[in-house]
């Protein structure tokens, strides 16, 4: 797909880059912190997929709502999840957004529209529909986003959701981040049909496959889908082609990925590619971008420090937030 009427301007491209730089630095820091033993956590690296949510979020407002998955910290950070509350949650501390009760797979931050993070494959989509229904009832033009993986596109919940969104004309955008692997299984091996995008036709909704690693293409597709949803024209499925560089979860060496495939993907790393484009197109200078990146590192330093110096929850907290009323001792 080439760009459409919705292609990003220079300002927007710089905005997208700012987000990708944050995402990339944050992933690198998480892996470093786990390796050092400073914080132990389950972690699903999104390194390599940064452009997808960065370009998407550049089209979104804070009141647009997101349902994402265990591999979703990139989606959330791109949408504005604050770093301190993020890191404190990763560290399991009371100052985390979920008071340490959710963790990396259940991060939530409603002030930025980050409503649900699920650890269940495919389960982001049914709930995003409900958020879309609420927007319809509120007569608001806000939209709901469901992100999920290529593997998830084969589970029933996704299909039930796309059908319902189509028949109810919900303002929902289904964003499949096709990183070509589901755990250890190659996309081709377990997927009937050439593309996931083609499945949208079965529900008479627009479905597009784009190079999710290309900021211009990804932004154009997202902007068009968001505009349709805001105008009450219903859902869209975007299949964003991308790749993950670090295995399924932290500690997975990814030996099932052919070496040449991985090498080619890393050589085409979308973050430095976007950076180079900004400089080549005269949108930003090397110094400007370096300053942005340095500021991000400082922010992450502060967030990590905040997290590890925050208090742990106590056993009595188990009785709180199960229901509105506390569970009796």
């Amino acid at each position: 797909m080439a760009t459409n009427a919705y292609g990003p301007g220079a300002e927007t491209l710089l905005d997208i880059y700012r987000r990708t730089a944050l995402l990339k630095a944050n992933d690198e820091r998480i892996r470093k912190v786990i390796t050092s033993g400073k914080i132990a956590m389950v972690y699903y690296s999104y390194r390599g997929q940064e452009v997808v949510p960065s370009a998407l979020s550049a089209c979104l407002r804070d009141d647009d709502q997101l349902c994402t998955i265990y591999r979703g910290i990139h989606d959330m950070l791109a949408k504005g999840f604050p770093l301190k509350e993020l890191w404190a949650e990763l560290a399991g501390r009371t100052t985390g957004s979920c008071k340490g009760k959710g963790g990396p797979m259940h991060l939530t931050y409603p002030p930025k529209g980050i409503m649900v993070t699920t650890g269940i494959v495919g389960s982001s989509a049914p709930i995003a529909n409900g958020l879309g229904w609420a927007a319809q009832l509120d007569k608001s033009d806000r939209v709901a986003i469901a992100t999920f993986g290529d593997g998830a596109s084969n589970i029933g919940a996704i299909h039930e959701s796309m059908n319902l969104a189509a028949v109810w004309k919900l303002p929902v955008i289904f964003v499949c981040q096709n990183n070509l692997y589901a755990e250890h299984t190659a996309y081709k091996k377990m997927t009937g049909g050439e593309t996931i995008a083609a499945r949208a036709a079965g529900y008479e909704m627009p479905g597009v496959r784009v190079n999710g690693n290309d900021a211009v293409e990804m932004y154009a597709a997202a902007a068009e889908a968001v505009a349709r949803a805001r105008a009450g024209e219903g859902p869209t499925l975007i299949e964003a082609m991308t790749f993950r560089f670090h295995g399924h979860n932290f500690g997975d060496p990814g030996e099932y990925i052919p070496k040449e495939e991985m090498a080619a993907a890393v050589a085409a790393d979308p973050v430095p590619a976007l950076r180079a484009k900004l400089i080549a197109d005269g949108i930003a200078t090397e110094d400007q971008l370096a300053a942005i990146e340095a500021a991000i590192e400082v922010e992450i330093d502060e967030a990590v420090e905040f997290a590890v110096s925050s208090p742990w929850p106590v056993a009595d907290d188990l009785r709180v937030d199960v229901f509105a009323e506390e569970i009796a001792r």
Partner: protein
Amino acid sequence: MNAPAKPTVTILAALNKALSDACAEDEKVILLGEDLADPEGGGIVGVTRGLSSKFGDDRVRSTPIAEQAIMGAAIGASLAGYKPVAEIMLMNFTTVAMDMIVNHAAKLRFMSGGQTHVPIVIRTMTGLGFGSGGQHCDYLEAWFAHVAGIKVVAASTPEDAYGLLRSAIEDPDPVLIIENLPTYYTPMSHELPDPSHRVPLGKAAIQREGSDITVVTYARMANETRNAAAKAAEAGISVEVIDLRTIAPWDRETVLASVRKTGRLLIVHEAVREHGVGAEIAAVVNEELFGELKMPVRRLGGAFAPVPYSKPLEDAFAPNAARILECITQCVN
């Protein structure tokens, strides 16, 4: 002397009025489910009849046959400030929506550290008696009672059906309401409840006071137990009948106070006895009142088998008034 007027009010009518009153009072109340709107008949048994015409098809929506999508839509809308009442036609069909109910509805409040909550009601019907066999009438309340974060409710009278549903809709957390299909149409009361009528969640009803034995029950088995208790009284046995009404969280205080008084406890439910709700109640009563019991806690429940089709087998599957009476008599003598 005039014969007393025959009751005319059914649980079905009470539920319909509760939904209608709730929609009228709070525009955040929305309904969804298969065949639920009037063009589709207002529900397959008619619990929601008339509501889409009254409140519009934006708020009262028929859905595709897609239980995960139904539950997801309810959960999502609730996260955005609505109070959805989702109908899952039959309780066995909750099994294809367990992920949405158990992993999401029940847990989002906790996992988000209280930033979000899921004020939904799930209405579902079940119960044997119509010869529908193994996949259409299970009582699965124990599955849900085992999950922290969801409340489970079952009424046995029109007043309770109305009051519990209204309370459930107003509750800030997910509530599963189990309705009994075979007794939907049984006239039980004389007047439909007033719009202000509420039955608090977590509060049992002592439906009959007695001193010889406590029977704890709920749903259709409460009706059977009331009949058994009336017969027992003729034989000089005084039975205290407690209808739990809320199965989770159950009313420990009321049950323990009653068993402390009678010294005997029988628990009756239609669900398979093994690993059922009765086991939890028996365990707590043993923990709290062991020294005061005159007999070991007894349980009557469904057979450890799928619900059968053939009439004699269906009759044999679940407790009934005669079997409850027999058990009560054994316990007391």
